[in-house]
């Protein structure tokens, strides 16, 4: 089973017809999907740095075109940090820890008690895109979501050469 680049681009946009989407979901994954997925993402972004791994709808680990360094970067080109660091520590943060802030997103009495739970929203300092929301107890440290073993993923899972890294 394989798909065209156009189909994968539609998948990324959320505009792929249901019949094809259903087939993708129920069949074993097509071997070339990850490479096609990266191509579709690369075509969408304005920067020239090579995408190594997508982390979210607008967030990527990229290989900088000039230095070959791997960094976590926003759609708009804003660089957060080295890819091994927690990018959230370099983001703009908005914490909803009062009832007034909570009723902006949930009806009154249907939001958590902020003594027990707060929302921490992480934004790109350059373009303002929201990249993540955490819902921890108020004292909890910033969550480091995951540290992907990119080399192993490329080598053992998708059978692609690992991009160069400075």
């Amino acid at each position, binding site marked *: *089973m394989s798909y065209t680049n156009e189909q994968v681009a539609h998948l990324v946009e959320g505009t792929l017809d*249901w019949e094809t989407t*259903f*087939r993708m*979901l*129920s*069949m*074993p*994954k097509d*071997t070339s999907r990850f490479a096609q997925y990266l191509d579709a993402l690369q075509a969408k972004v304005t920067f020239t740095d090579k995408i190594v791994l997508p982390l979210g709808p607008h967030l990527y680990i990229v290989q900088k075109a000039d230095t070959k360094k791997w960094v976590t970067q926003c759609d708009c080109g804003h660089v957060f940090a080295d890819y091994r660091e927690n990018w959230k520590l370099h983001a703009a943060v908005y914490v909803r820890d009062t009832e007034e802030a909570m009723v902006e997103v949930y009806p009154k009495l249907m939001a958590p008690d902020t003594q027990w739970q707060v929302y921490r929203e992480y934004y790109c300092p350059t373009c303002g895109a929201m990249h993540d929301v955490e819902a921890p107890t108020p004292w909890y440290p910033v969550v480091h979501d995951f540290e992907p073993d990119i080399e192993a993923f490329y080598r053992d899972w998708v059978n692609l050469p690992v991009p160069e890294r400075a």
Partner: protein
Amino acid sequence: MVRRPGSGAEAEKKQPNVEETVGHQDIPVQVMGIDAGGTMTDTFFVRADGRFVVGKAQSNPGDESLAIYNSSVDALAHWRREVDDVYPELVTCVYSGTAMLNRILMRKGLNVGLICNKGFEQLHSMGRALQSYLGYALEDRIHLNTHRYDEPLVPVSRTRGVTERTDVQGKVVIPLREDEVRQAVRDLVALESQAIVICLLQSHKNASSEQHARDIVKDELEAMGVSLPVFASVDYYPSRKESHRMNTTILEAYGAEPSRQTLKKVSDRFKKHGGKFDLRVMATHGGTISWKAKELARTIVSGPIGGVIGSKLLGEALGDENIACSDIGGTSFDVALITKGSFAIKSDPDMARLVLSLPLVAMDSVGAGAGSFVRLDPYSKSIKLGPDSAGYRVGTCWADSGLDTVSVSDCHVVLGYLNPNNFLGGAIKLDVERARRHIKEQIADPLGLSVEDAAAGVIELLDLTLSEYLRANISAKGYNPADFTCFSYGGAGPVHTYGYTEGVGFKDVVVPAWAAGFSAFGCACADFEYRYDKSVDLGLPQFAGDDQKAAACATLQEAWGDLAVKVIDEFVNNGFKPEDVLLIPGYKMQYMGQLNDLEITSPVTTAATAADWDKIVEAFETTYGRVYASSARSPELGFSITGAILRGTVATQKPVLPEDPDAGPVPPESARLGSRPFYRHKRWVDATVWKMEALKAGNHIVGPAIIESDATTFVVPDGFETTIDKHRLFHLKEVK
């Protein structure tokens, strides 16, 4: 009447494919069955002497009547007859097709407006959770990501709630607010509704509020000077289960009228060519109804049912009352059981991914068929069949198919089961080398097998899947395969018959010579029968007083009375007199507190006295003992009647089975077409190839042999033998 010149004898010499009975043009053609499928439209004609022909043509969704005409031309060419001569001779014609189903699946019905209880406006859109995975293969059912809710038939924007409430006992606790109904009608008309459906809670228990709403709707429409059809659920499907009742009533409004137009077009074309018969349509309950019938939603699924009805008729002719019906098509394998001469009815089936309250001939399906795609799981390296299939594109062996994934048919072609030059009578030429190459690349090489062994492995896997499924279906219901005769049909059935019946231990295995047109044949066998159902709630202890029994009988009789009016109305619409109609009452009964009811044909024609009640109970207990076990009977729980059923039939012409004289066990030399290498059990053997049409009653053939006709191939491998009987049925046996 103009007939083609030329004697039969001459024609036979020039055209060996034409059936030997050419020339008997004075024998009238009486019965026509139509199976208008998604890809092919099959027609089946039966003469007064029981001889039959099968015709095939490409389906035409734009104008079904044209595909039926083309298919008829194809069929009648075997007899050198013309449509214009034959249509006027026909006395009966039954249609079954997928047009209505497709209309629902493609969401191409009318703009329906819905009136329901206030607060329940979202009920139809939400649907039942299982509707999100109905029709899925098991792997997808348990894979939540694939679950998906279809577009509702009626959007919330065209739904209006009205204040009303009837409780579960049928007591009106909040009366209907009339002004809200009137406002709802005005809204729905403004929204350009083309039909209005009314479905209120518990209306099967107490119809008064819903009927009241219906009258107000009609009154308001009249006052507005608007003419729209109005469908109240109580008038159509007065059964419990709100989602089912609502879906079914909506389906009626949404899809039935457009389907009626399709059927009218078909009927008109018959009339144009001289047809004098009244077109009937196969319905889900296993009977046929007129295309003018009030309830057409029940024609939504009809094709596969035909085979079950045909099996029942054949079973009666052969004296077999327990039959396992197996139909193998391109995408699926359908199994139905006939026990003690009757098939089971499911009262709340699902169709087109909707739960419905329609009586449906019970059938089980597995998504593996003759056209299923074959793939290797990239991780486990195991062979996977389907769930998708090549369908009409056959497989990679057909170069024009545009396919490059191997299908089961490719394996058959490579192993010599199918004749690459005679697929669909030679209409399609198959490329064996192309299939070999794809099997080698995709299956054989990755597994380190030869092409033959890889292909044979695929066939074995399919056969095993099907036979396990068949066996499980019989034993799970508490029966023993040794008590059953297996009927095998469908275009691809006879290729697989030996494979999925081997070792199951059936009493007999029967392959009709007309396997490819069997569903169409079965439709022509069905009674002209209306069936209506109504939910009732009756509960009586084991030792009830005579008064209680008589009261229960009165309630049941009242329900039958309501249904009789509907049934007789339908026949009167078709020009029958009420006294011509044979009414067959039935009921659904269970031990009180148990979950499953059984459908029983009533031993009494009217129910009034305590003695009647006792007979009703006795008939239930006998059936219960047969279906489960005598020792499982639990009369101490008391008895519930959950539904009243009424069937009404009138006499119709049915196909006559052929009765051929016994020509002895040795097949005529003219039937021998040659031989073909055939691979099974790790070796190539030479299989004798026979022409199915040229074989005579009584002929005995020992495998390895392949019996070919235009529309089907019957495989008899080594270790099997077959005899053709006077009805042109092949009986397949394992040689011990």
